[in-house]
């Protein structure tokens, strides 16, 4: 199982491609040929298994498209953080 999971709020996506460029695991890509409600080509998690839950995508995304989960390793503060 993947170490991380990203949930994509597709309709927020503007297809800017920044997350694609900044994901260190090449998990993401733009869903060419598909359009979201706003008329943009949205991002999609193609290579889900590679996701480490590093949240780089959430950090770079200007449109808060991502929610990110990661496999629990040890007890950690609950506060989400970037």
């Amino acid at each position, binding site marked *: 199982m993947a170490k991380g999971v990203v949930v994509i709020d597709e309709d927020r996506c503007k297809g*800017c491609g920044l997350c694609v460029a900044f994901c260190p695991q090449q998990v993401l890509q733009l869903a060419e040929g598909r359009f979201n409600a706003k008329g943009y080509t949205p991002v999609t998690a193609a290579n889900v298994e590679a996701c480490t839950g590093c949240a780089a995508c959430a*950090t770079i995304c200007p449109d808060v498209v991502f929610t990110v989960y990661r496999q629990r390793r040890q007890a950690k503060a609950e506060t989400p953080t970037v």
Partner: protein
Amino acid sequence: MEEMELVYKRPESLTPAHTHYCPGCTHGIIHRLIAEVLDELGVRERTIGIAPVGCSVLAYYYFNVDMAEAAHGRAPAMATGLKRVSPDKVVFTYQGDGDLAAIGTAEIIQAASRGELFTTIFVNNAVYGMTGGQMAPTTLPGQRTTSSPAGREVETAGWPIKVAELIAVLPGTAYVTRQAVLDIPTIRRAKKAIKLAFQTQLAGLGFSMVEIISTCPTNWHMDPKEALEWAKEHMLAYYPLGDTKVSDGVRALM
């Protein structure tokens, strides 16, 4: 996902609204960082924001806090008026480079000089975004814009203004820094700086400002990734990152 922990979720200090920003515009990143900081400091319910005239004019739809929309450049005066009668509130202005460094020069300098207890987030994207890409006071030498079509000529248009350095000269400032949102490490540092700026305000130490080097892919005529790279290469060369003023009180918070 029982065995999964939440690493990132949308901050409560943002409304659910979709922004009107262009794809890849860093205004969105900066909004998010501010919202995360307000969440972390637990001050959302006592925060009041002042939106500028500029691309971020609609910021009041995006921040889940009370907000007002200022006249072009006058956000610091408005924030002053408001904070002085609401000393228990957390007040911030969000301003672009045209707004803050051109028409609003007097207001930001005087508010900083008085040490007003609010925080300014200053988004430097080297251009007037909203009106379609004219030269800003921060436009780089040689940079082409719709009002400097041959590239900014410093002989006639002057040198770009380094706001963080200028403001830092004023004794009323407690914390002034220049950050960027151009990749993961700069974004992380920018968030820390924003947090420290709000903490400076909460501790009543003086005026705090975070200048943030940003991009305007649309008016730079670049794709968002290219814009980040251009900013790193060209803007950071002229606008070095780092703190330009850290008062003793602020140092103690660090």
